[in-house]
């Protein structure tokens, strides 16, 4: 699946496109098919998201799993500070990241 | 021949009292070949120093910033002022609010941005810093000079 991520302009928090809005949880991410570029352009222009980009992910039993390790670290938090994990994403274990 | 340059009505900010030059602006190469050119346009890769023999006849030097992140034009401006050029030095192209004060310090005294700038934001940006740490093309005394007056 193709999903979208970016950062909140004001707070810098990592956000994921849930079809209507930007969510803090990677597991809310929806497949945007080939609409990615269009949504990104509109959302960025409206300043509802900053520096957004599209990426590939898969839906697993544990939720939405980005294909690249960098985006999994982004989704969950620094692996060396597990106390700071994104609460809504942390239903997955840390093995999910690596 | 076609005029490469900006016209006076494209100049949004001007810090000179004389009448703006309004005539054909040529490339640096053409300026060196043509004995009657009085306005020239410097591109980022041009060597401003090749103009030094012709400064007396120049009334306008435009320095083009095709992209604001390319800072070569700042050096070009200072080099011309250091050589005594006192005609109009016009920054054109991708000129943004937050570049204005540095450009003024490097000797630019006219600005023709591609996209007109918010006047209030521009004034604020130009007036933000009361003093300067280094000597440049403007006549401002540096903080170090003020400390040891």
């Amino acid at each position: 699946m193709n999903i979208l991520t970016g950062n909140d302009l004001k707070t810098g928090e990592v956000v994921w496109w849930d079809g209507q809005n930007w969510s803090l949880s990677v597991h809310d991410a929806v497949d945007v098919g080939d609409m990615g570029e269009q949504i990104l352009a509109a959302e960025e222009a409206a300043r509802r998201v900053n520096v957004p980009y599209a990426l590939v992910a898969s839906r697993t039993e544990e939720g939405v799993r980005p294909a690249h390790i960098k985006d999994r670290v982004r989704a969950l938090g620094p692996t060396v500070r597990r106390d700071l994990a994104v609460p809504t994403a942390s239903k997955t274990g840390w093995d999910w990241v690596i | 021949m076609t005029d490469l340059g900006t016209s006076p009505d494209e100049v949004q900010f001007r810090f000179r009292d004389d009448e703006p030059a309004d005539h054909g602006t040529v490339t640096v190469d053409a300026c060196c070949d043509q004995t009657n050119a009085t306005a020239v346009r410097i591109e980022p890769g041009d060597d401003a120093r090749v103009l030094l023999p012709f400064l007396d006849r120049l009334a306008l030097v435009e320095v083009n910033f095709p992209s604001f992140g390319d800072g070569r034009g700042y050096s070009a401006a200072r080099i011309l002022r250091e050589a005594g050029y006192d005609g109009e030095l016009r920054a054109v192209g991708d000129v943004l609010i937050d570049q204005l004060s540095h450009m003024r310090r490097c000797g630019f005294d006219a600005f023709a941005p591609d996209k007109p700038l918010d006047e209030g934001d521009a004034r604020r940006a130009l007036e933000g810093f009361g003093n300067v740490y280094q000597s440049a093309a403007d006549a401002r005394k540096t903080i170090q000079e003020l400390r040891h007056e």
Partner: protein
Amino acid sequence: MYQYDQYDQAMVDARVEEFRDQAQRRLDGKLTEDQFKPLRLMNGLYLQLHAYMLRVAIPYGTLNSRQMTALGDIADKYDRGYGHFTTRQNLQYNWIKLEDAADILADLSKVEMHAIQTSGNCIRNISSDHFAGAAHDELIDPRPYAELLRQWSSFHPEFTYLPRKFKIAVIAAETDRAAMRLHDIGIQIVKNDAGEIGASFYVGGGMGRTPMIAPQIREFVPLDQLVTYAEACLRVYNRYGRRDNKYKARIKILVHEMGAEEYTRQVEEEFAHLLEQGVEPPLAELERIKPFFADPAFEDGPKSVDRSDPDFALWVDRNTVRHKHDSYVSAVISLKPVGGIPGDATGDQMRLMAKLAKQYSFDELRVMHTQNIVLPHVKIADLHALWTELEAADLGAPNLDTIEDIIACPGLDYCALANARSIPLAQRISENFAKNGRTEELGQLKLKISGCINACGHHHAGHIGILGVDKKGTENYQLSLGGSEAEDVSLAKITGPGFDEDGVIKAVETVTDVYLEAREDGERFLDTYRRIGMTPFKEALYD
């Protein structure tokens, strides 16, 4: 140490308001991200993997207890209770909100600090010897010269949109503790045959994807021409540095492609021209700055410690360094607890270090490029009391310059550019050697880890270097040997094919085994490597 006068304070305050205005224009949509990015970077604000990151400048790595306390308070008030000391003697906060950034800068300005030019394609914060003013082997304190250059480089109108970032280091000892020749400009303050003080200029060094050692381009620049010479070096770079490819835009590439001789010729020509322009600040300014760095009132006292507590004796042996006054030492507070995150400190730890600096070190602290903190002037008589408090706060690791004293960049755990994680490697390697007990036996061994080719973790300069790369979506690590950032500067060489995480941890053990087997009396790992070469290490790693 240096204190702002009304001019310095007004400049920093003006910058805070300028940035507040810029950030507001971004939030209002008057600036695009492309336009805003260089402006926020020049105020230290990055957008990282998880959030905005703010890098605070610590000019030449020197700060006082009030400043360190403020850094701790900001960590608690605006971030998640900690900060990260970097390889350029700065401090980074990892979880910053854009809407708070101007307020943080305002809090910093109250203690004479800022984040000016800690990023962006401009002249960055100037680094120096972390033992400046305390070292027994220095010619003179280099920091007044660094301060002079700090002022010159701040808001420089011509050099704010350089081809790429620009880093300057200033030292004044033959021993190089600042990786001077791996900077865009390295300056060594020297004395000439006539007994005059001046500056040697080394230009075009750097790490990153194309590491280079800076060649000397001038042996002696008189002090009343220091700024003018730097200006000439920068002007030639601004005019001719490559702008067609960001990976070839650093000055090292210009110097390399043009040739050091031709670059020098052009600098000298520009220098001769600029001398006529009167750009040099009055020499009186240097004289004004110098007294800020005068020696504190040292007192004679005991010259040795009671070694009956072996843990304390070990810490004294490892973490204290000879001082120019024989009743004092410089004490290093390790931010490398075994299994910890190199360079991280909590708000509480920062406030404690501040308190200890006030109590035991004439109110002064330094940040080392190796991501530790120095109390530069500690009475030998006070060492036990100091160590006792450090131990209680998990700041007493006795491992300066050992294999546990690892430099590591934030890596993929925090950094948007990284390809692999660095910190977990550092944690596991330090745990490994603490457990197998070889740390002491290995002696000085500088291990440096970068999570990508940009080399923030200085892997090219490690006796052992590790570079994280992306191998088809998984983390992979290249091992290199033989680098040094010191006066015996050299660039490390890659051993061969890379390893996975477990593999590289094992490989580090393997190369240390080769060293212990082959070393001769008094040899460091680096010395043995230089004597026996790569082959024995390669054989042990790959055969």
